[in-house]
Structure formats: C-alpha cells, structure tokens
C-alpha cells in the first residue's frame, strides 16, 4: 500500500518565486472607467486609433456578462478594485540596460532570467515584462540584422504602427469574450514579434511576465506575425509573488501565420497558485488564438500549466489556409485547491487541414482539472483530419478530473478521432521502481514525467528540462 502521506509530501514544495521586489512604482488610481482608459493610452502616448480601439472594447465589455459556463467557483471579482496600470519608476528613456534599475535586474536574475550582458549567453532573446510595462528586451540588434522585430507592444505602437493597426484584434476581436474585451480596453504591455518573409528566426524569443504588485492586474497583449516562409519559436514564462489576495491576469495572445510560415508558442505558466487553504493566487483568464491564414502554415501551442489559483485558457487555432496545421500539447497540473479549465479549439475551415491535440491533466489534492476542447470541421474542410488524446492522472481521492470534448462536423470527407482515459499512479509500478532501489519521490516523479513525455518532447530544450523539474517540485507530497 502506498503511504499516502509520503506521497502527499512529494507534491508540496514552497513557491520559490513568491518574493516581492521593493521598488518604487507609479500606479494610477483603482477603478475602471473611460478616464482611466484615456489615462493609460495617454501614458503610453498612443495614436488615436488605439484609443478608439480601447474605448470601443470598453463599451462592449460593459455590456457583457462574466462567463460562468466553466463552473469555476471563485468569489466575484470587483473590477473597480483593481489598479489597471502599475509601472516601476525609471528614467524617461533607457538607452542601455545599465540604466535599468538594478533592483529590477536583480529580480529577473533571481527568477533565472538573464537580462544583463554577461548572462546573455543562452542564445534566447528575452522581453521582460514587470507589472504593466516591458523593462528590457535583449538581443535586439542581432535580431534586427535578420529583419526580425522583437520589442514591447508599446514600442511597436510607436515604431511599427502600420503593423499594429493592420493586425491588432484581427485574431481575437475585442468582443470575443468578456476577458478579451477587458484586455482590449486596458492592455498595458506585452511583446510584439514580426518575422519577415523567408526568415527563420535565428534564436528562440522569450517573454517573461512578472506580477509584482498585489493590487494591480496584469493585462498584457502579445502579437506575433510570421510572414511567408518564416518561422519562429517563442517561449513564455510567468511568476508572481505570494499575496493573500487574488490578482487578475487577463492576457490576449494573437498569432498570425501566412503561407508556409510556422509559429511555435510554448508556455510554462507558474503564477502563484495560492496557499494550501486556497487563499491568494492568480486568476489566470487568458485568450490565446492563432490564425493559420496561409497555405501550409503551422501553429503549435505547447503549454505546461502548473500555477494560478484558477486557470481559464483555451489556446486555439483557426485553420483557414489549405493544408495548414494546428497542434496543441498541454500538461496541466493542479494541486491543493487549484482549478484549471483548459483545452483548445481547433476550427478547421480550409481544406486538407490537420490538427493534433495531446492533453495531459494531473490532479492532486482537492483540485479540479478539466479538459474542455472543441474540434470543428466546417463545410469546406474537405480532406481534413483531427486526432485528440486527453489523458488524466488522479492523485488522491479528493481530486477531480473532467473531460468535456465538443466535436462537431459538417464535412463527410473529414475524419475526427478523439480518445480520453483516466488513470492513477499504479502501485505495482511504484513497487517495481522502489524494489529496484529508486527512491519513492523519484519513482513518482519518473512516472509523472513518463505520463507527460508526449508533451515534453514538444517543448524547446530549455523549457523541457525546466518543466520536468517544475512538475517534480509541484508534485512533491501529493501522490496517494
């Protein structure tokens, strides 16, 4: 018999990113109204079309109702009790990283994100976002040599306004859903990536999001455009300090892939999940969507979701271009009182489009982990295919694992296959591994890692190793 307490101990690991950086910040007043939106827009010196975009979104948001269909139990969010703009105070213009507040650099250092010159050896360009603003973007000159634009979205609004005006809100319209509308109204910063025609991005691009302030929400917006025959791999990481209040994170990510372009978007989400009693933690309500506009374009989402008190996230692909490909690889781990409702939407519109979904959910403690996905074959999606696989692993008899796949087809010449299964860590396997001299914790960790292997294989090298470690840490103490 597996010692339940022992296994539970394996899942418990203190959140090591929970520190707060003591830094002077500039915050605007709490609350949300047109004046606040105008103020944000003014602070960011935005052109008129963007202010109009925000105000229009705000009007739509006011008419919308917060969605409750996912059945996530959380106390009502007071949207007037949130600070919508918070930025560390710094000199007006920064010409080099030396001018960035050393405390900020230290923060990212502690998080393991190399921003300073001497540490930029890992060949990953980083855009670091602290609360509402982007602090620094590394390797910009090197990327510029290839014509790749990688900067914060605020800078892109100033320097590449035409691209922003052309593409912003085309994949996730402001009226798409409640949280997308909110984000469209108040988004503060985020990353912008543009890969020109025929360019394979010479290095992985990465954004690191850090919420530092307990009373401000983070509403970043990411826009990635891959022109014809280009390709890019983008990584995203997130952490936040431990507060006993809930912080709202409502982001929007839009990806656009033109003919033969490929975008790989990987996330390791490790927002603060709240304590064992479920106090505190981030509400992670994110809208991520990619549009495969061009022929043979490809968008691949891979995600490792381990943090957040509540996750509501469905990275999706609109497969418009002929022979375009959508992929979704996900590991979602919930522990204690975490709730995750995550999955994907694969909307096949063009002919011969293909999609693959591999989702692995691990529920421990008293958590709820749901896969919710939609696969839709439109009338023109002739010769299209989908394959979905959703596996859940239950750890302990208090956790819950749900699967809600919505499958819809209007095209006879298409094929959809879906399968789902539920299992637990087998005592026999544990016994076998232990009898071979492998420590209990290591055995559990090995089995979880094996369970998630299909997804980890899809992650970029750095992330795969990190994800594996993260899962092992998160799981410490919960197998039973």
């Amino acid at each position, binding site marked *: 018999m597996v010692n339940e307490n022992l296994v539970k101990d394996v899942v418990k690991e203190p959140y090591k990113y929970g520190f707060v950086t003591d830094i002077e910040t500039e915050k605007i007043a709490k609350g949300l109204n047109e004046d606040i939106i105008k103020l944000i827009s003014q602070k960011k010196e935005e052109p008129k079309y963007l202010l109009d975009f925000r105000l229009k979104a705000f009007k739509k948001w006011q008419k919308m109702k917060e969605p409750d269909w996912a059945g996530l139990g959380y106390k009502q969010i007071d949207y007037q009790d949130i600070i919508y703009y918070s930025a560390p105070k710094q000199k007006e213009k920064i010409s080099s990283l030396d001018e960035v507040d050393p405390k900020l650099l230290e923060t990212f250092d502690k998080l393991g994100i190399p921003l300073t010159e001497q540490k930029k050896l890992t060949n990953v360009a980083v855009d670091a976002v602290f609360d509402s603003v982007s602090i620094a973007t590394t390797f910009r000159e090197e990327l510029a040599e290839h014509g790749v634009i990688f900067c914060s979205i605020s800078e892109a609004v100033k320097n590449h306004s035409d691209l922003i005006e052309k593409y912003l809100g085309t994949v996730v319209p402001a009226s798409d859903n409640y949280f997308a509308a909110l984000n469209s109204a108040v988004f503060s910063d985020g990353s912008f990536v543009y890969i020109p025609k025929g360019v394979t991005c010479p290095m992985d691009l990465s954004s690191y999001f850090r919420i530092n302030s307990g009373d401000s929400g983070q509403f970043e917006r990411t826009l990635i455009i891959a022109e014809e025959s280009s390709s890019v791999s983008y990584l995203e990481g997130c952490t936040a300090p431990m507060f006993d209040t809930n912080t709202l994170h409502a982001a929007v990510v839009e990806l656009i892939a033109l003919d033969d372009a490929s975008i790989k978007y990987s996330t390791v989400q490790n927002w603060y999940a709240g304590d064992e009693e479920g106090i505190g933690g981030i509400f992670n309500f994110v809208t991520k969507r990619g549009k495969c506009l061009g022929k043979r374009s490809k968008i691949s989402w891979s995600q490792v979701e381990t943090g957040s008190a509540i996750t509501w996230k469905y990275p999706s692909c609109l497969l418009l271009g002929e022979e375009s490909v959508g992929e979704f690889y996900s590991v979602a781990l919930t522990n204690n009182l975490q709730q995750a409702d995550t999955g994907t939407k694969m909307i096949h519109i063009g002919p011969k489009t293909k999609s693959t979904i591999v989702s692995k959910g691990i529920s421990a403690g008293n958590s709820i982990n749901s896969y919710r996905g939609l696969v839709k074959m439109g009338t023109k999606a002739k010769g299209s295919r989908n394959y979905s696989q959703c596996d859940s692993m239950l750890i302990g008899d*208090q956790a819950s694992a749900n699967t809600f796949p919505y*499958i819809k087809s*209007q095209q006879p010449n298409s094929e959809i296959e*879906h399968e789902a299964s*539920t299992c*637990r860590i087998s005592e026999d396997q544990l016994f076998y591994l232990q009898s071979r001299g492998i420590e209990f914790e290591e055995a559990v960790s090995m089995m979880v890692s094996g369970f998630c292997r299909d997804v980890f294989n899809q992650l970029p090298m750095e992330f795969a190793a990190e994800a594996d470690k993260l899962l092992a840490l998160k799981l410490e103490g919960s197998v039973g």
Partner: protein
Amino acid sequence: MKIIEKIKTNKSIDNQTEIQKICLDKLQSTPLPNLKSEQWRLSNKSKLSDFLDYSVNEKDPKFDTPFPKTSQSTIRLVIGENCQINLIKENFAIKQLSEDQLVKYIKEQISCFDQNENWSDLLNLSLNCAKNTLGLKISGSEIPPIEIFSHASSNTLNAKTLVICLEKDCDIDLLQVNLGKDNSSLSQSTFFFLEENSSLNHGVVSYGENKSNLLNSLNVIQQKNSEYNLGSLHYKFSYARFEIRIKQSEGNAKTNIKGMQISKKDEQISTYTKIDFNGPNGFLDQINKSLADDKSHAIFEGSIIVPKIAQKTNASQLSRNLLLSNLTQIDTKPQLEIIADDVKCKHGATISQLNEEELFYMRTRGITLTEASKLQLSSYFQEIISFIPVSKDRWDLLDILLNEN
C-alpha cells in the same frame, strides 16, 4: 406558458391526477427547458415547438400492429386503454402495480428530478392520465419475452408512461416499441427499478413516419449485482430525442448500452445519456452509433459521473458517427467527470464516412458500389441490431434498414 395553457385546456382541472398537478406546478416555473443549457442547446427550437404544437390526445387510437408474427411465446402489451395483465405462473409473476403503488413510486422519482434535465419527464407526466400509464411488477425466472408498444396517432400529441419494477433475481427480455404516425408527437417516459441480482435485456425500437416527433426518456435505477443491457434503435423521426439516465445506486452493477440512431432528410435525432455511479465496482460499456445523411443533424451527448465513493469503477464510452452528406451535421460530446482515483475510465469518438479503401477493395472483387456500401453498413448496424432482444429472431430490422439506405 403556451404549453401549460394547452395542457390545461385539454382537460378539466378536476380530472387531473395528483401526479399531473405536481408536474404542472413544476412546469409552470419552467414552461420550456432552458434552451441555453448543455442538454438542450443543440435541440432544434422550431422542431421542439412543432412537437408541442399538437393537441393532447387522451383517447387511445386504433392500433394496428405493424409487425407480423405474433408469437405465442411472447407477451405483447399496448400502453393505453384496457391494458391489463395479471399473470401468475409457477416460475414467475407479472402483476399490475396498483394505482397507489404507482403514484408513490412516481412521486419518489419526481422528488429527485432536475427541472431542466427531467423536463421531458415532467411534460410526459403532466400530460398523462392514469389509463396511459402501465406499471408492472415482475418476479421470477424463465419469463417469456415481453413486447410493449407505445404509439401516437396523427395530428395529436400522445403521452405514455411505463413503470417496471424487477424483483430480486428476476431475469427478463423486454422490447419496447415506440411508433410515430404522420404528423404526430409521442412522449414516452419509462422508469425501471432493478432490484438486487435482477437482469434486464431491454430493447428500444422507435420508428416514425412522415413528420413524426418523439421525446423518449428512460430512467433506470440499478441495485447491486443487477445487470442492465440496452439495445436501441431510433429512426425516421422528424425530431427525436432519446434521454437515458442510469443510476447504479449502490455500485457493483453492470450496464451495457448499444445504441443506434439514423437520421435523413432534415431530421434531428439526438441521444443524451447520463450514467451515475453511486457506489464501487460499477461497470459500463457503452457504444452509440449515428448515421446521418442529407440535411439531417445527429447529436450524442454522454456523461459518465464517478464520485469519490465509486472506486474501482470500470467505464467506457464510445461514440461512432458516419457522416454521409455535405449538408449533414454531427455533434458529439462524450464526457467524463471523475473524482475517485482508483478507476478505469475512457471514452472515444470518431466521425468519418464509409471507408474508401474497403469500398475499393470490394469493388475490385466485382461487388457493385451499392452492394459494397450495403455490406459496410450492414456490419456497422449489425453490432447494435443483434443486441436488441426479442426482435432479432422475428423482425428483420437489418433488412428494413438496409433497404431504406
């Protein structure tokens, strides 16, 4: 509220039974199901309103049994007027439930109803008078197969209710046939209670005619060590909705379900199942097949609920769908909701058309395309048809289906 008014105008208030009053009261607060809810959102609104459009008919229409070959070894019952049976033999007994017993049992069921989920039952019970309700208590073994017919008559809405309690160690084969007529609506609610060690092989064959509608609701409660096998077939309805709710009240029970729905023209045929494991060691094996052609719409939604108490549950659910035309639509949603950790649960779903390679192979062997398609369909249907009890020996369901396809 129209529907409530309609029901009321169809009968004088004084004649209402106690059950009807309770259900009407409940319906008053939800005169229509919540069409935004998961269970109803895909339902064709205009077809549902067509269903409710007919006036309620309490009198039983003349019934011509469509199927020949009444066998002496089969007990055949038609729900409606003069449906009486009291058969006590050496090995078994089939007794009619007294009105008090019926009311008591149905009231117990109503107390557990969810307004939205059991809306079809509420409608059925509010429409139905005592004479269109058949309640049976069955005990013993070596019972001859039973066939029970429910039928609608043209231009009316008919409601039939069937309640069957199987006593301990009882073992029967039962076939339920629901027949639609031109421009008609049939509301059928069935309640089964399976006591310990009992076993029921249940078949449901529902077929309609031009513009006939069906709301067919099936509620099964299984006590431990009971076995419930269901084979069902629904076809030729403009609008048909088959709701299956099974509760293994103490676990340790076995459920096998094999269902088939065929939709053509602009028909909408849907199956909703909810399997609730309320104890350990439950078993479920379910397969639901759809064939959708022309402009039709086929829907399957199945949910498996495994609470903490239901350890060692073994459940599998498969939805297989054939989509044969460009204008057809198929929606399928198998769901798992699991809290117990020591369980084996899985589900799968596929949507495709007839396998081209198989067709090609048969054609290279000199079989015509039509014949080859028929052969494929035959194997697709056969798995389900052969699982429907009673019918298989004497009814040529497979032939009927193939000749229509």
